[in-house]
């Protein structure tokens, strides 16, 4: 994938998305029975609601009659009713009622998307329904683990989703963007960085050894000594990441899985393209410390939200500049290994989908 292709994609000129994947559509608690939720995904308007059993339903957000968004309508039992002329649709997408007429044309049908709920998210499959496997949804078990706490955010960001993934696969940026909380200079200057392909995607591990703890670490990890610090990002393309962040007393074997005074938190990320230039970002920090100190936990959460706010400011500023200078070349640096592998992983999925589509076209061609 060359620079030009990636620039065009980031600027929204080439809106290619991996379709055969589970994308996070909403936090579970954003979706109720009282009203439907509009949710544009991959450039397609989607409406979400819960049927009478509470199961999530995802449909094309468009009445076949006058293109009114169904999200402006009402939930009626298991059905959704258009707010304009009252057409009703079942969770299969089939129109089952047209007020004032007994017959319903067979074409009165909208697209239905597979939807599942897991670990506090509602996931929607945007590709070929036949390939949707509920068991393949990304797992974030810490979200609901006993004794664990969390803080979370759903942000709508004015940027291409790739910028978010790039950010999370190169955490040297903490030294500059988050210098007042989780960052310290050594994260950029002296880190041991390894990027590898894994069974499910890409892992970037960063270790900084025997360094003064960053402010947040000193405060909540209660270190009065140097630490060994890890940042392990696991990316499952196209859209989910888990990052383990932690530290232990320097020189106590943290890299070998031991370590004294270990302190760790796990961040769950689901990054869903809304359009080529906008993104819905679901972010949660989970941890098993602080159960005994509500005040400290609240302050830790405040710092986490400060950090994510700084990142969001970066994303929107990048997108603006990208659109101003779509043809300027991008400089590659050593720490790009993670983002680059991340982009290649997405690219492989995209290529796979293109090949499959081409094969189908050929088949059709041969059989006719």
């Amino acid at each position, binding site marked *: 994938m060359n620079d030009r292709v990636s620039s065009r994609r980031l600027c929204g000129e080439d809106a290619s998305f991996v379709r055969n994947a589970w994308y996070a559509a909403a936090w579970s608690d954003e979706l109720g029975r009282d009203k439907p939720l509009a949710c544009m995904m991959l450039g397609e308007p989607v409406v979400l609601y819960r049927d009478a059993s509470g199961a999530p339903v995802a449909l094309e957000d468009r009445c076949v009659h006058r293109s009114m968004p169904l999200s402006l309508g009402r939930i009626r039992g298991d059905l959704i009713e258009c707010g304009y002329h009252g057409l009703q649709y079942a969770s299969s997408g089939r129109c089952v009622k047209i007020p004032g007429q007994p017959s319903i044309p067979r074409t009165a049908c909208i697209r239905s998307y597979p939807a599942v709920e897991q670990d506090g998210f509602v996931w929607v499959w945007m590709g070929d329904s036949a390939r949707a496997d509920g068991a393949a949804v990304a797992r974030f078990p810490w979200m609901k683990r006993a004794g664990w706490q969390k803080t979370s955010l759903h942000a709508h960001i004015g940027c291409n989703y790739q910028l978010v993934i790039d950010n999370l696969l*190169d955490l040297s940026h903490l030294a500059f963007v988050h210098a007042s909380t989780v960052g310290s200079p050594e994260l950029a200057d002296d880190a041991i960085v390894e990027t590898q392909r894994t069974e499910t995607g890409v892992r970037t591990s960063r270790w900084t050894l025997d360094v003064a703890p960053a402010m947040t670490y000193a405060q909540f990890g209660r270190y009065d000594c140097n630490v060994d610090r890890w940042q392990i990002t696991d990316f499952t393309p196209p859209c989910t990441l888990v990052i383990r962040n932690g530290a232990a007393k320097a020189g106590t074997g943290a890299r070998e899985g031991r370590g004294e005074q270990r302190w760790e938190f796990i961040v769950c990320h689901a990054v869903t393209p809304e359009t080529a230039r906008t993104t819905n970002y679901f972010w949660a920090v989970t941890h098993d410390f602080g159960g005994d100190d509500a005040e400290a936990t609240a302050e830790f959460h405040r710092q986490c939200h400060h950090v994510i706010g700084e990142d969001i400011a970066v994303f929107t500023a990048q997108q603006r500049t990208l659109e101003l200078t779509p043809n300027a070349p991008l400089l590659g640096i050593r720490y790009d290994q993670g983002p680059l592998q991340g982009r290649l992983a997405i690219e492989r999925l995209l290529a796979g989908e293109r090949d499959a589509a081409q094969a189908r076209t050929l088949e059709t061609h041969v059989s006719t």
Partner: protein
Amino acid sequence: MFVRNAWYAAGFSDEFGQALTARTYLCEAVVLYRTRDGVPVAFEDRCAHRRLPLSMGRLVDDRVECGYHGLVYDCTGTCVKIPGQPNASIPPGAKVRSYPVNDRHGYLWIWMGDPALADPATIPDFGKLEQPGTARHRIRLHLQCHFQLVVDNLLDLSHLAYVHATTTGNASLAEDAVVKTVRHADTVEIKRWVRNVPPSRTFVDFGGYQGRVNLWQVSQYAAPTYIHVSYGSSDAGVPMTEEADIWRHGQWGFDVFHGLTPESERTTHQFRYVGYDPTFGDAAAIDEFLRQCDQIINEDREIFIVQQQALDSDPRGLSARDVRSDAPIHADQGLAIARRIYEQRLNDEAATAGRSQHRLAAQGA
């Protein structure tokens, strides 16, 4: 599309110091600062790596550190540090575009075109602002309009009669004025004068007139966007000739200089200085005079906004530059010439760019 090979006002000189300022000129995002020695620096406001605006970073020892991954740029826009990798491994192409800048006449000027052509001698002569005895008052506006609408406005001052009726305007400026328009190579000069008319309010307030007056205004335009307007007046009883008086303020007057810099096709930076002789009144009178000056520029701003809105909602998709008045009036003569001068500069630049591309292609073959 804009004339690029020109000095544009980046702002007032003292707006820039040892801090990073982000501004957009001609649709290009620029970051500006001064080194500890006061030397102005301007380069592209984007990191070559991931395009974060460099203005979101920090100024460290006269260099700019990107706020994302810490790449450092020196004042030529060359990347001199990439954290986590040795300096020897910095690719030679790791730089961002830098722009020539120059302080003069209270403005910082920036050259948005080919740096090889940036000749400080072509900075407009606003030297009158720096003459001894001249006081300066300035205002900076961000206008929601194409710059052409502002140039049009300043080159047809008949609008004073309607837009600025409570200050400098007077019906006779539109009805009875003699207007003389003269084109020199890249400039046009529009003189407008009326004799023996009742003074408008500003002239009563600060010129101290009791009876009727002579009034004149001279607008000078130089491509691409430099404008100087001189206002003068005298008692109606004083004989007034174009040649002798029109270049002076007469008994009372002032000068206005406009640095206009397109930000985008729909927005413009306006940096205006009013130059005046502060001996005409006490501090309260001067305050009131300057208040009237700022009222005037804000009255114009309201006009620009609605003009641009009307253009934007035109189904033909017009830009301010496409618009020739559907009904040309006599007073349009000067601004029509200014538009032609600007077009000529645009065409010349396109031809030069075409020639150099041709030359490059020929060399390549």
